[in-house]
């Protein structure tokens, strides 16, 4: 792991992304989404991406723009209803969608980061989203099996980083980010500010530096 992690957003995307890569992108809507890195994806030639993100931004904004550029082949997430472009791309067969309950989605990513194989959750048992999935009774209750999820790359948004790559988040922009930062082979964090080592409170660091490969300064905001 390099000790000097700060690089340019385009350079970061060049280093970690490739055609066909699976990419976790943090954010709940545009809040906590690494928009500078997403813009760098848009400006890059990469294509055929599998995006793991709660939703795909808004029409033309955030991952919504990446979708419009035709770079997303598949999306795994929980709530694509708010961007009508997704419904259109799906209807036209341009994008494959995998839908998971939000709690199952992020728990599967946590399991991937935590080196677990999978888990049983009561969520969705007996519903359409459990069809074709393994079910099992545990403690008198039906559970659905969910395999752990990892990705090639995670792009996350934090508030501040120190130069080692420790991250702290801000308010509800935290959301999926610290979990995704644990579950990908390469992790790039977009931050508002980079501070000296020792300037962050060790009790507040939600992503210790061992999870972070590259740091990028945020230029784009919602």
């Amino acid at each position: 792991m390099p000790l000097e992690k700060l690089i340019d957003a385009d350079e970061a995307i060049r280093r970690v992304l490739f055609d066909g890569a699976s990419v976790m992108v943090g954010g709940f809507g545009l809040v906590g989404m690494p928009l500078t890195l997403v813009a760098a994806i848009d400006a890059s030639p990469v294509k055929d991406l599998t995006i793991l993100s709660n939703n795909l931004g808004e029409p033309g904004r955030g991952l919504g723009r990446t979708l419009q550029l035709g770079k997303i082949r598949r999306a795994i997430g929980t709530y694509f209803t708010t961007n009508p472009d997704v419904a259109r791309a799906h209807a036209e067969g341009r994008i494959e969608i995998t839908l998971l309950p939000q709690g199952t989605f992020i728990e599967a990513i946590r399991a991937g980061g935590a080196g677990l194989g999978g888990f049983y959750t009561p969520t969705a048992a007996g519903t359409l989203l459990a069809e074709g999935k393994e079910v099992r009774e545990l403690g008198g209750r039906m559970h659905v099996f969910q395999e752990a999820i990892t990705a090639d790359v995670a792009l996350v948004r934090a508030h501040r980083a120190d130069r080692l790559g420790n991250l702290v988040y801000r308010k509800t922009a935290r959301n999926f980010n610290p979990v995704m930062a644990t579950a990908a082979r390469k992790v790039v964090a977009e931050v508002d500010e980079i501070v000296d080592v020792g300037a962050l409170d060790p009790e507040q660091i939600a992503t210790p530096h061992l999870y972070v490969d590259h740091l990028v300064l945020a230029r784009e905001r919602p």
Partner: protein
Amino acid sequence: MKELIARRAARLLERGWIVNLGVGIPTLVARYIDPDEIFLQTENGLLGVGPRPPPERVDPDLIDASKLPVTQRAGAAFFDSAASFAMIRGGHVDAAVLGALEVDERGRIANWAVPGEPVLGVGGAMDLLSGVRIVIAVMTHTTREGAPKLVPECSLPLTSIRPADWIVTELATFRVHGSGLSLVELAPDVDVETVRRRTAARFRDLEAKGA
């Protein structure tokens, strides 16, 4: 009408409870609770949701699950989504107020898949139903066309096999028992016959007390 539903749902919440409010009518419930006694949790990572801010005080990093700006109360805590759903699924949230498209006569909710459209969104609804201690379903009693939403069996896919505990509409409040629905309260100027006419599901009205 929505305000009426929200106000009635709010009355079911008890002092000290942790409550999650879904999108739509449920968000209105926040107006009718005492924020020192009821704590709002939002699944995007905040316990201690405060009221919506005036435009000049909007913090772009502070939203609720409806993706609208909120504020934070004193004593609030932020956490990541995995921790948030651990709370929800693990039974640590006392109540959820959730919008519904249909409710069947066993109290089970359909609220995530819209008729005639591909299923592209589920969000946290299934997790809330699987884990929260008390679920209060809120909806208008009928569709815009006047069709009952309380039906013998849902035509839309269920959100969970776990039923709601209460169903609140502008006409009445129902309690869900092991096997069915009981009318427990009527809105002002509404009689049982009106409710019965606009409800396709069977329900018991033995406990109805009027309002």
